[in-house]
């Protein structure tokens, strides 16, 4: 097997809370290959979000390493990290976290704007079309429904053609029908563009559909199952 896209090695995370230290992650080892679709499930408080943040370099592990293509990102300086996040990682959060002052199109273009002068108009429009929002380009987040907002967030996460898209309960506050359509969008994107997804979810249906399921419990990985019959195209190199 070639180098995995992400390799989480013996990562622990300890929070200081009112003088007491609280170990939330107690030694995590996880490899994610390029083009994989991975879901993390587990009870609330298991440390799923914390792990996702560490993988997304939004936070640093207390111990352990996180390697992207062999490079340890925990050693990067803050501006290098910012640059790395911008180019390599896309986020989708439970609460969409769009910027309220900007239109849907501008929100999608934002990672490109942050990066530099290049305008990403065409690509952003194309992405919005892909998530089915070509009619909502100039709407502000406040003028979009929950599902639409989450689609915009997804389009934004994909703008820079990241290696990895991290999603933390992306359909956590959507109704089941809307959730289903967002879920199928994930599969669609993975199949068509070979994008790697790491998705935390509480939705049993969605988790059941995913080719690889990592269960977490109490800061440890409980189980890591791959489906016997992977979905078509799963694991296709990017």
């Amino acid at each position: 097997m070639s180098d995995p896209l992400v390799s989480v090695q013996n990562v622990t995370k300890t929070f200081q809370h009112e003088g007491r230290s609280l170990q939330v992650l107690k030694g995590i080892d996880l490899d994610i290959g390029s083009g994989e679709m991975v879901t993390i499930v587990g009870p609330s408080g298991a440390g799923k979000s914390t792990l996702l943040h560490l993988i997304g370099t939004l936070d640093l592990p207390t111990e352990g390493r996180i390697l992207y293509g062999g490079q340890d990102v925990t050693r990067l300086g803050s501006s290098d990290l910012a640059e790395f996040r911008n180019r390599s990682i896309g986020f989708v959060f439970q609460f969409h976290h769009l910027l309220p002052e900007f239109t849907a199109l501008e929100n999608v273009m934002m990672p490109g704007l942050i990066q530099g002068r290049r305008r990403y108009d065409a690509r952003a429009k194309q992405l919005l079309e892909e998530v089915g929002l070509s009619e909502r380009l100039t709407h502000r987040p406040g003028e979009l429904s929950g599902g639409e907002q989450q689609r915009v967030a997804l389009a934004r996460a994909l703008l820079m053609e990241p290696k990895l898209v991290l999603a933390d309960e992306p359909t956590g506050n959507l109704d089941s029908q809307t959730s289903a359509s967002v879920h199928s969008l994930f599969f669609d994107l993975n199949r068509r563009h070979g994008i790697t997804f790491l998705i935390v979810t509480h939705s049993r249906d969605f988790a059941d559909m995913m080719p690889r399921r990592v269960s977490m419990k109490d800061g440890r990985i409980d189980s890591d199952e791959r489906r016997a019959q992977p979905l078509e195209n799963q694991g296709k190199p990017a």
Partner: protein
Amino acid sequence: MSQARPLGLRTAVLCGFGLVHVAAVLVFGATSTQWFQASIGNDLLWLRLAIGWATCQLSLALLSAAVLQRAARLPRGARGRARTVALGISAGLHALITSTSVGILLWAARVSMGHVLGGTVASLLFGLTHLAYADLDLSWLPTLYETVTTLQGLSSALIVVLSMSCWFLVPTARRARFWWGFDAVLAVAFVLVTTLFPISSAEGDETSLLRAVVRVSVTTIFGVRVILRLVGPLLSLFERIGFRSMVAARHLRAKKTGFLAASSTLSILAVAVSSCMLISVLSVMGGFRADLKKKILGNHAHIVIDKAYEELDDWEPLLTRTRETEGVVGATPFLQVEVMVSSLSNRAGAILRGIDAETVSEVTDLAQNLTHGKLEYLQHPERILDASIDTTKTGALDAMINDAEHAAAKGLPDETKEDSMPGLIVGQELARALRLVVGDRVTVVSPRGDLGPTGLIPKTRPFRIAGIFYSGMYEYDMKHAYIDLSVAQRFLRSEGRISGVEVKVEEVEDAPALAAQLASMVGLSGLRVRDWKMMNQQLFGALALEKLAMFITLGIAVLIAGFSVFGTLTLLVQEKRREVGILKAMGTSARGVIRIFVIEGLLIGAAGGLMGLGLGFVLTFAAEHFGIRMNPEVYYIDKLPVHLDPTEFAVVGAATVLVCLAATLFPAYQASRVRPVDALRYD
């Protein structure tokens, strides 16, 4: 529209009427003296004014009643109900107070109808208590009047505030339509005043002054509206610069929560007011300096060449050589000594200067400063009497004396006539102290007397007042007297000698350099060459120090405005924490976040600074062109001097921006430290 509109037509009319009413009160209050004087004894005008006033109050009361009745029908808790009710009540009370007090005052002053029309109503309307009550023995009236005025002032302020807040109840679309109409009218007015009215007023012409004031006001309002219209497009343009300016501009544009909106408005205003204050005060102080400089340069030479303790003997070559020096416009010799001048009524010490009447005008403004008499009378004193009879208004007795003297002078042979009574020019204050008019006779006592048996006998000589000058500097007007140089040389026993040479140069700022050049030219002959800066070093030094002190004091006001920018930005950073987290998660670096908030602070500062400087410019421009009268008895100038200095505007602008920049740094740093995990975790 089925939905209840809190702001009906009546409220809108009341809003507008209330504002116009308050503006009218302010304008009339400010110009009350003129109105009062114009209509004193003109009962008809006063009657009209009183009727107009009563109509205003009555319609205000009716309108407020109508609005109240309408507001009462609104459901409890409807948006704007409280505001509308408050506006109705305060407008009604305002009308009530005013009309009641007018009634009481009319009754109190019923003694004389003319008095009522000429005084009391006037005083009620325009705040001339002292004039109206001078001959009314009703000691309680002023108290009533003051109470009423205070109440009126308070309710006016209330009406303004409430009207403005009610204005926001009008639907946005309708407000926008209003502004389009307003701007269209304004644009037409602007074009009209620009083509028809003068920008500055002719001296002493009231109508042209009024027109110039109208033109400047309309231009100012027009400018403000243009700028307000431009803010949006400009911000859009600004957004295109890049990602950071885009986020900053959007943050500022976004509708903010109540407190932050108030805070950012207040901080812009604070910056505006403080920078306006700073630039206005600096301009006035610069005006004083320029005024002083002008007066000093007008009365004194730019460069003086003399000897410390002696007089100059062989001065003709020096004069010619000085005149030939490049950069020198004129040079004139003078002889100077301290004397005593006595008139019939009084005596005073003075500096007597012998001047060359032919060349003195090349160097100083003496000829222009003469308010009475002429410079040529110094050489032709016999002309004083020819002229003084018809120009100087004196009593019958004076005329008789003048006539007699005139006749006597005519009878004398030419030379005696010239020598017997030479002319003397004195300053206005000296003339006042000695009670002199042109043609009067004075005696000058010189310290360089003859040696008598008991020692030095002071030499005295009679002179005739040939002119009176006003330089604008009290010291100067009190202490200086001029006579003809040759007369002075004879009188002071300095035949052929002078005290020094006065020089005027082309460019006043070059005077020090030119002085150095002249000094090297005259060499080691014991002459000293001083320029005007050197001679008035202390004065200008004190002024500069005062200005610096003022700059620092008012700079502190700008600093305090900076604190409010600091507070606003801290709040803004708090409010935008989550968004900063998102931006950082998407790969904005800490430096990028810092820059976003620094740009926001700078935009606030720039908006405030531009507003302040603009307002300061309008104020100083108006003060410079329309003049603010000052009491000349107190300040010795009749108009507040103002000097607009572009560099000062630049410095104040730069200082404001710097202060705002400093104020943004810490909040921006705080924003950059926001950890995306903390900002995103739980909402």
